């Protein structure tokens, strides 16, 4: 089946090695920090995040210096003397201490309205505490997901087809209406469309970034970047200002998976970033869902393979809702029926019946519907105005929603 990927977490330990660290120890780490430093510890923890130290490394510092503030104010020699820490980690820590004023940075974050939630806070997501290499703290624009709200991660290819796009939007929208949080990575393609669908459905959605939360990457998603801050939150374990470097992105996938109850893969090639998320999901014991695609579509090979190896095939939003938010379905027979179907007639109906989720050329639609070209163009525009179909650049028309 799916193999575990060995991902270097930057502290010399491999992801698999964390299986031996029990969550209880992590919890006690939070208690130890609280006991030693009190709530003020957040300010120092933030700088430890700045130095990209893992929980393990934070524990090492406490073991040696007794508290975080003491570690932060210790002499360079003492820190360099800490044998358990890797050289890079020590250097990063020392650099941060040299260049950064803890209080100023704290104020700066407050002004930028960036929240910092560390492991000692109650708000820190429970779901994250359960995973092996949980981050020390999170930077947030907006808010964090509630642990009690069901959440689903929607992931997929950056270069998606119109089919993937429409499915992602449609399902995300319906799930959002059912009160399920949509978690994704705000990347181009499926990620972005999942966020958009959720936003349009009026639900909450959370984007886990591989860069600082103050950086919108990719830039085209600036509109959802702004909207998500009001309808959910932008989350990152990286210090604000961290540039989007490719190494960070696979790593943030573990948070996307950890924050969710299940992972839906909409479109993915055989080997892609989505598989990393799925791997993490399996490791963390999440449900895997996949949208089946045509066997000839290379973009769906990943999904189809997931289904073969045991992922649940999703053909409608209810397939997920019945597992994540079964209460919502009670008393409701068919969700699709809920969508209002405007009355179409004549040429418009003929053309609408010929439309698919994938782009069709006008010629193709003409021969399917038997309409003359000028009538067809006319009818398509009317459907477009009514929001029933979409013109895809100069490449044809597709149905707007399932």
């Amino acid at each position, binding site marked *: 089946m799916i193999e575990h990927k060995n991902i270097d977490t930057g502290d010399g330990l491999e992801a698999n090695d964390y299986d031996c660290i029990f969550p209880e120890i992590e919890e006690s780490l939070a208690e130890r920090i609280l006991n030693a430093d009190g709530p003020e510890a957040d300010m120092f923890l933030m700088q430890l995040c700045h130095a990209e130290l893992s929980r393990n490394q934070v524990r090492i510092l406490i073991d040696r210096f007794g508290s975080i503030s003491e570690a932060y104010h210790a002499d360079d020699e003492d820190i360099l003397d800490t044998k358990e820490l890797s050289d890079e980690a020590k250097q990063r820590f020392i650099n941060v201490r040299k260049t950064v004023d803890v209080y100023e940075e704290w104020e700066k974050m407050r002004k930028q309205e960036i929240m910092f939630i560390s492991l000692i806070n109650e708000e820190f997501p429970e779901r994250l505490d359960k995973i092996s290499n949980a981050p020390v703290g999170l930077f947030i624009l907006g808010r964090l997901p509630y642990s009690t709200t069901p959440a689903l991660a929607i992931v997929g290819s950056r270069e998606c087809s119109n089919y993937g796009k429409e499915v992602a939007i449609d399902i995300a929208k319906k799930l959002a209406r059912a009160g399920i949080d949509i978690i994704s990575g705000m990347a181009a393609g499926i990620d972005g469309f999942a966020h*958009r669908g959720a936003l349009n459905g009026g639900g909450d959605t959370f984007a886990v970034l591989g860069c600082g939360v103050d950086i919108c990457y990719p830039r085209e998603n600036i509109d959802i970047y702004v909207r998500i801050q009001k309808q959910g939150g932008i989350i990152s374990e990286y210090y604000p200002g961290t540039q989007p470097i490719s190494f960070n992105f696979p790593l943030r996938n573990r948070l996307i998976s950890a924050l969710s109850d299940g992972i839906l893969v909409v479109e993915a090639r055989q080997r892609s970033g989505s598989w990393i998320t799925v791997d993490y999901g399996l490791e963390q014991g999440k449900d895997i869902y996949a949208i089946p695609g045509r066997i000839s579509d290379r973009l769906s090979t990943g999904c189809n393979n997931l289904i073969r190896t045991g992922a649940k095939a999703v053909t409608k939003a209810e397939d997920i809702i019945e597992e994540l938010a079964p209460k919502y379905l009670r008393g409701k027979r068919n969700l699709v029926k809920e969508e209002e179907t405007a009355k179409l007639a004549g040429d418009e109906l003929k053309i609408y019946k010929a439309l698919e989720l994938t782009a069709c050329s006008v*010629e193709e639609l003409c021969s399917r519907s038997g309409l003359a*070209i000028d009538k067809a*163009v006319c009818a398509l525009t009317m459907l477009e105005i009514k929001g029933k179909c979409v013109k895809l650049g100069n490449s044809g028309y597709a149905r707007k929603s399932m």
Partner: protein
Amino acid sequence: MFCSIASAAIYGIEARIIKCEADCIDGLPIFNMVGYLSSEVREAKDRVRTAIRNSGFFMKPKHVTVNLSPADIRKAGTAFDLPIAIAVMAASEMIPTDMFDNILLVGELGLDGEIKGISGVLPVVLAARDAGYKTCIVPKDNVMEGAVVDGIDCIGAETLESVVRYLFGSREDDMKPLKIDPESIFDEDRSEMNLDFYEVAGQPLARRAVEIAVSGQHNILMSGPPGAGKTMIARRIPTIMPRLTFDESMELSRIYSVAGKLDKDRFFMTRRPFRSPHHTATVSSIVGGGVTPKPGEVSLAVSGVLFLDEMPELNREVIEALRGPLEDRTVMISRINASYIYPARFMLAASMNPCPCGYYPDRNRCTCTDNMVRRYRGKISQPILDRIDLYINVDKINFSELNNERKNESSEAIRKRVERTLNIQKERYRGLDICFNSQLSAGQIRKFCKLGDSEKTLLESAFDSIGLSARGYHRILRVARTIADMDESDKISGSHIAEALGYRENMGTEEMRV
């Protein structure tokens, strides 16, 4: 002795009469030339002297001064060789000057006295006629160009010697004026056309859109994967345009004459041009220019089609340089010495692939990222897109259509309809400075594209639901006007608008948005 004879120089597509003055006096044997000359004109003195000697004439060693007047405009080109030679010979009292008032000469001389072809003969002959000259002697190579002009004798000369003989009064066969009736070659030539629309298999959308484009002289952009037939369709656009009128062809021939693109086989433009410059073209080759300005492709496409294949592959400056010609329908090229104005009333047909690899949005074949697609499309800037009224997608046709025995509509049949639609517009815009729907200004749109209440509501909802812009609004109305005209309907109806909306620009990244 002093002597002067007329010649002409090309400025833009007009010719100006230039007087060649020569004076010979006793003194040191010097050949002096003045009159704001470019270097090729200055070099004429060596060609002239040698040509005179090699034609069998003996020039006495005298102090010769040549002036090209008016002396304040720059003279370029080699057309002054012949008049300078004749003026110098006359000033040396070697030939009689009694015919000089009624004659105009142009031509380049070889060292052996042969007269070589030049460019721009047609405007020269036209200018000579308008200035009241009776005879125009031009190089034999170019005589056909000049012979179409009515009201002036145009003689093609092969050698300097034959011109001299003519001035002595000899009327031999080789110096007889040539007469060509342009109307007859017109009829003869336009009967045969080797391209026809029936050769295009399938593609009903492209056919319809192209017909609309031609019917209102709208610019059109075709997007589609490689091999879909965009170029094939574009090449056939001139075949459905109305026949060239005599006035149009006169203007066009002038431009081609100036550009040096006329020859013995094609001395008069009888067909609408189809220009398809390669995408490596430079700004000056497209809009015109050069040290001695020459008309560019936009002017060579006057009354016809300028086809830009693979438009995003063109240099950005080249695309941007099209803004002016598309807006003003003329090109003005400014140099230190003068500004030259060339006409640029052409119909733009452009083609492009939807993405760098050509297969977007077929994700099984296209591996371009959204960013690549966006960047590729972004190469055509919004101001240019705003000047294109129709956007269509041309898809690959399948085998059954390719093999279909059914005969498609021919260019002839389409042209009949197009002519009818264009006549409606001609009637409507009589007395205005426009002839086609595509030229309607915002104010004129308000006047000629009146909408009923339901049509207004339709456009309003289009504004909201499909993100039509204010600029797009006018484009839609212009196209809707043409579609209504094709329907012979005075009123623009909802279906006309809806169809026009179907051809609207959708180059942006809306498809990636929700």
